[in-house]
């Protein structure tokens, strides 16, 4: 009997040991986050001044100047990318949720399977491959050169799967009774989607767009090979440019101006934190509304 008790104690001890290791893993991941984010923000903020935001980089090897032109280039690129990717992404999401399941033609059904495979595959393609593709097709073959246009086209490949997935999620959360009510009143499928389904999914879809904007702000590899890297303020979609993320890279690798790089990096990290908070807020409000 005593031996039995000992064995049980041993098993419990084993469990305590294992669980403390798991607690440790959870704690370490939080510590890593706090350390990385804290370090970048603390060291970066000590070099931040108002001037930094409103003066353009002066170029040259010292890394002097601020980041005003890179902020403009980033905003410009985000807008252009979303203009290209949003209609395609939302359109695809609407088709996959609203049309794909009640199709009669077997050929179109095969297309749907192909489309689903495409979305999954595209989501796994590494960004440098989008860059390489964009360089070959848009920069070289189509003669768009290193420009906001080339970069936005290549960047849309990165965010289209993001928009499709969030749109699908958002549409699936709209109760079927809405659709049935609208169809029963004589509205056509498209009228139902446009006037009933999409308006009630707008919050969910907007998280996808915000998430995509965040991806463009963070992305470096694609734009390193398609955007050209000029530190001047872009004047048209054919201008070369340099996003904030790209600026961090050039500062760190070419001028070794680590202070300025860290300051720009801190701005990026704060932006990403804000984006995460906004998305969490919207999705929390959504789940409170649908009660799921």
């Amino acid at each position, binding site marked *: 009997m005593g031996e039995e008790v000992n064995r049980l104690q041993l098993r419990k001890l084993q469990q305590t040991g294992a669980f403390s290791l798991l607690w440790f893993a959870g704690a370490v*991941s*939080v510590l890593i986050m706090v350390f990385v984010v804290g370090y970048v923000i603390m060291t970066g903020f000590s070099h931040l001044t108002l001037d930094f935001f409103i003066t353009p980089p002066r170029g040259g090897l010292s890394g002097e100047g601020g980041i005003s032109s890179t902020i403009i280039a980033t905003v410009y690129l985000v807008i252009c990318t979303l203009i290209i990717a949003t209609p395609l992404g*939302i359109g695809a999401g609407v088709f996959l949720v609203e049309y794909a399941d009640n199709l009669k033609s077997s050929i179109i059904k095969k297309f749907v399977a192909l*489309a689903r495979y495409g979305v999954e595959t595209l989501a*796994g393609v*590494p960004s440098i491959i989008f860059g390489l593709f964009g360089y070959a097709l848009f920069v070289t073959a189509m003669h768009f050169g290193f420009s906001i246009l080339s970069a936005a086209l290549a960047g849309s*490949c990165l965010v289209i799967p993001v928009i499709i997935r969030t749109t699908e999620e958002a549409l699936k959360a709209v109760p079927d009774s809405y659709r049935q009510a609208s169809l029963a009143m004589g509205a056509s499928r498209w009228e139902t989607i446009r006037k009933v389904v999409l308006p009630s999914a707008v919050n969910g879809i907007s998280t996808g767009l915000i998430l995509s904007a*965040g991806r463009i702000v963070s992305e470096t*590899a694609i734009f390193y090979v398609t955007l050209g890297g000029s530190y001047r303020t872009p004047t048209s979609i054919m201008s070369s440019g340099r996003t904030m993320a790209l600026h961090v890279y050039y500062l*760190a690798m070419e001028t070794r101006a680590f202070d300025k790089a860290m300051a720009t990096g801190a701005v990026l990290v704060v932006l990403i934190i804000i984006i995460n908070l906004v998305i969490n807020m919207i999705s929390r409000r959504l789940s409170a509304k649908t009660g799921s």
Partner: protein
Amino acid sequence: MTGKQRLESVVKYILLFSALMSILIVVMIGIFTFREAIPAFRDIGIIKLLTGTVWRPGQGQYGILAMIAGSGLVTLGAVVIGVPLALGCAIFLSEIAPPAVRSIVRPSIELLAGIPSVVYGLFGMVVIVPLVRNIDVPGNTGFGLLSASIVLAVMILPTISSVSEYAIRSVPKRFREGSLALGATKWETLTKVILPGAKSGVMSAIILGLGRALGETIAMIMVIGNSVIIPFASSDNPLSIFLSRARTLTGNIAVEINYATGLHESALFATGVVLFALIMIMNSSARMLIGRGKWEKK
């Protein structure tokens, strides 16, 4: 057909077209990258390209073995460091963390996923590289495989952790209840019932993480040193191979594409084809494993 019906079917086909855009892009990426790589495959030869140890574009030598070794070793390093931590987090979040703790840990990991890779690279250059430089081995500059593996381990943690957590959570409750009812402790239930049940999902999480690691570019360029050499151990300890500088497949493309011409440019596209193929194989196998690991809902 009335006007309204015509509109309906036009809209439907426009939407179908946008749905097909993704697969179209994938196909175009395949075609374009491969087309540009053909001269390299033809003039250099696939075997020579893949097994050549010297990459000197100026002298017409294009072997990417050093980059394959670099990518392979840095990914191995990231897996050794990152996978135990990521799986630990996944099990912690799905099985033992109280809700209040979970609501701190999970957003932290999500935030790690959102930090731009250029910021990880910068952090690596400023914090990790100087630390690694302290290891006393001849020729160690801090830039190299070890620093890159550490940075990469943090970058793949969110992917592996969230996909595994999902896999562990989808093991049916009745398995756990059955095991506990038989007198197993929570830990025994976890290791002997739940984890084996989530095995294929966890495997696919690790493979997805590997894919992310192979595809990472900017952070790698910033900390790995970018020398085109086959990594070597510079002291008696074979582990010192991780202090060697290296270059990844992705870094090779990014660093040289903007000024490359002719056969050199084609060889870089061939590097892209190799990378694309590797990652496609990994992602498809991960997807198959996820499919196989699904429990029927009851």
